[in-house]
Every structure is written in structure tokens, then in C-alpha cells.
């Protein structure tokens, strides 16, 4: 079991993601990256799918990364890192490298749920020793807020805008965390930057496990969610407290809810903070909020049952 760490301890570590990156003010992605890198006590090498994080962290002569980092294309962060990790194993076997290195891939939801899905599935199935982190902000934010399979039901995006006939996204999100768990990999988890200790603990735990690991981290985007620049943490906390984004892990097939909100808040509390859901509060669309609530309740119920299966 990975030891819990305090912020005071973490603050004495070197920050491996430097300031001067060009992500928007109040973006959730650098908060996630910072926490993930701080969590590790290992030497790290990272890969990054094309996306906001990638284009904003490494431009011309300026890189925010203080660890070795590689960006290849949009859909292949997992395959790229599987190549890096395989070369590491080869050189280590040959005695050309002696240090222990851990490998982390970062991808947004577009690069992970959609275009990079095959690459991710392949890398996980092949058993590479890597941790794949999806920073899920629920749309193609880098290109200007287009719908992805991670976009929540009802959200207004630029390719599925809420109009007089179409009330935003008409499909449910893909449950990628569960799909990754279905790969029977040793560790899968959901985390939120609001619950930094939970996130850090999960990263630390994942890095202790040999083999493929996947973490899905809710990452607010104030441009795409049409919220305020100061609310990334507040909104990710609300995502957890409404059970829109339950915090749990599946270790060797065993599901464990790692944070249970004292009082499960209604999803409307989350939706009303964001411009992308504004249209849902029109009288004719309110039925849709009920539908979202039902789906969240159902999923939360299912997750608790899954956990209960292993509790006894």
C-alpha cells in the first residue's frame, strides 16, 4: 500500500512541469500533470497525445517538461510510449541502462476515447509497463470544443450545438474507465484534481504495479464548460460530489470506491455552473436533467453493487 503524503512533503519536491506553459488561465490540465509528476518517486519518461496540453507545453524552443517527453501524433500516445518502453526493456536487458524508469502517457479525451482508442487498447492488451492518464475535459477543446464520445449527454458543443431542434449532445458518454477495466489490466482508477490526496495516492499505487495501468481524471476546461477561470477545482469537486465522476479504483478486478460523498448532491448543482448546460434549464428541456440524474443514479448504484461484490 502506497504511503499517504502531505502537501508539505510534496512541496519540497522539484516541480517537473515548469511554468511558462501556455495553457489557458485556470486550465485543469496543468494541475493534473503537476500532481501526477509530484506523486512519483521514480524517474519518469512521458508521452503526450496531440492536444491542448501538448501544444501549450512544448512550442519551438520552449518546453515545460523537465522529464524526457515525446509527442508523436494525436492518436498514438499509447503506441508511441509502448515503443519507448520496449526500447527501455531491450537496453536494460542488454545492460545499457541501469536506472529504473516509469512511463506515463497523457492524452485528452479526444486522443484517448476516440482517435487514440485503438492505440490505447492495443498497448494495454500487450501488457506494457506504463500508466496511461486521460485528462478528460469532455470535448475536443484544442480545436474549439467539438463533441467527443466523452462529452456528457446534453452538453452544448460547437459540432452538436444546442438549437431549437437538437438539445446538445443526444448520446450518453462512453464509459472508458470500465472499458479499460475490461482489458483485465492490473489497475484502473478514476480521480479528480479536487481530491489531490486521492489522486496522488492512486498514481503512487499505479507506479508500484508492473504492467499496464489506466487512470481517468476529470479535468475542467473553463472555455469549453463555459464557466469561470477560478473554478476548476470547485467544479471537479462538484463532479465528484454529484457522483457524475465517482472516485474509484479497480485493482486486479476488485472494485473499490475510494471516496463516498457524505451527501450526494443533485446533478443540477453541477450542470448549472456551466454555460454548456444552460439550455437544459429551459422549461422544455428540464426533462433531460431528470434523464441525466437517472443515468447517474443508475451508474452509481451499479458501481456500489460492484464494490459490494468484493466486500464480503
Amino acid at each position: 500500500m502506497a504511503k499517504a503524503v502531505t502537501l508539505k512533503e510534496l512541496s519540497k519536491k522539484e516541480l517537473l512541469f515548469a511554468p511558462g506553459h501556455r495553457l489557458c488561465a485556470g486550465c485543469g490540465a496543468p494541475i493534473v500533470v503537476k500532481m501526477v509528476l509530484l506523486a512519483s518517486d521514480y524517474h519518469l519518461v512521458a508521452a503526450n497525445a496531440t492536444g491542448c496540453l501538448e501544444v501549450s507545453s512544448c512550442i519551438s524552443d520552449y518546453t515545460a517538461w523537465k522529464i524526457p517527453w515525446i509527442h508523436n501524433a494525436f492518436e498514438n500516445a499509447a503506441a508511441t510510449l509502448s515503443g519507448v518502453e520496449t526500447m527501455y526493456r531491450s537496453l536494460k536487458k542488454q545492460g545499457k541502462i541501469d536506472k529504473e524508469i516509469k512511463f506515463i502517457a497523457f492524452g485528452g479525451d479526444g486522443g484517448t476515447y476516440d482517435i487514440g482508442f485503438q492505440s490505447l487498447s492495443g498497448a494495454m492488451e500487450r501488457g506494457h509497463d506504463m500508466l496511461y492518464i486521460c485528462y478528460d475535459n469532455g470535448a475536443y477543446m484544442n480545436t474549439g470544443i467539438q463533441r467527443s464520445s466523452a462529452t456528457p449527454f446534453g452538453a452544448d458543443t460547437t459540432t452538436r450545438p444546442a438549437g431549437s431542434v437538437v438539445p446538445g449532445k443526444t448520446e450518453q458518454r462512453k464509459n472508458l474507465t470500465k472499458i479499460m477495466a475490461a482489458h483485465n489490466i492490473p489497475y484502473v482508477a478514476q480521480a479528480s484534481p479536487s481530491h489531490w490526496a486521492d489522486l496522488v495516492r492512486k498514481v503512487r499505487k499505479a507506479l508500484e504495479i508492473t504492467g499496464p495501468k489506466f487512470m481517468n481524471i476529470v479535468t475542467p476546461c473553463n472555455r469549453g464548460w463555459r464557466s469561470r477561470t477560478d473554478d476548476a477545482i470547485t467544479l471537479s469537486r462538484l463532479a465528484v460530489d454529484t457522483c457524475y465522476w465517482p472516485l474509484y479504483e479497480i485493482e486486479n478486478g476488485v472494485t473499490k470506491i475510494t471516496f463516498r460523498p457524505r451527501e450526494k448532491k443533485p446533478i443540477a448543482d453541477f450542470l448549472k455552473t456551466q454555460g454548456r448546460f444552460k439550455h437544459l434549464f429551459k422549461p422544455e428541456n428540464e426533462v433531460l436533467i431528470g434523464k441525466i440524474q437517472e443515468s447517474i443514479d443508475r451508474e452509481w448504484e451499479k458501481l456500489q453493487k460492484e464494490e459490494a461484490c468484493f466486500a464480503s
Partner: protein
Amino acid sequence: MKLKNWKEVTPGAVITEAGSSVKFKTGSWRSLKPVWIEENCIQCLFCWIYCPDMAVKVKDGKRTEFDYDYCKGCGICALECPGKKGNKAILMVEEEK
């Protein structure tokens, strides 16, 4: 800065200076500025861990001043600051010339 010519660029565009983004100051993006009120600070370090721009300086496990070279003025620190007895240790003020 003088731009390099084609003979001077690194093969394959590889960047060999880790963390060189520190040369790119993003503080000029700011329209609101966080101000630290030390007497209200309980050193919880939430501002430090939640800052997207690594703009809260920490020394020996304690926060010190903001790094205005990089702070983009998002205000997350101020919103998350629990303060002391209801008094925030970080306030956002209008940026002045």
C-alpha cells in the same frame, strides 16, 4: 531574441533544454492579480497544489510570495483558499499598469 537560421536548428526539432518554458513569461496575460495576506494564511498549501501555473513559491514547506512572472490571474488560489476564521489569505485585485 535573434531567431536561428536553418543551419542552427536541432535535427528533428528536439528541444535539449529541459524546462526552458521558464523563459516565456505568462504574467502579462493577467487582468486580475492575487494578493497574499500573510496574517490570514494557515499554510495549508492548497494554493500551491492547485495553481495551474506553478506561480506560488514555496520555501521549506511554506508558501511565500506569488511568482508574478507566470501567474495568469485565474483566481483558483483565491477561491480555494480557506483563510483564517473566514478571512481569505488571497484576494484578487484589478491588475494595474
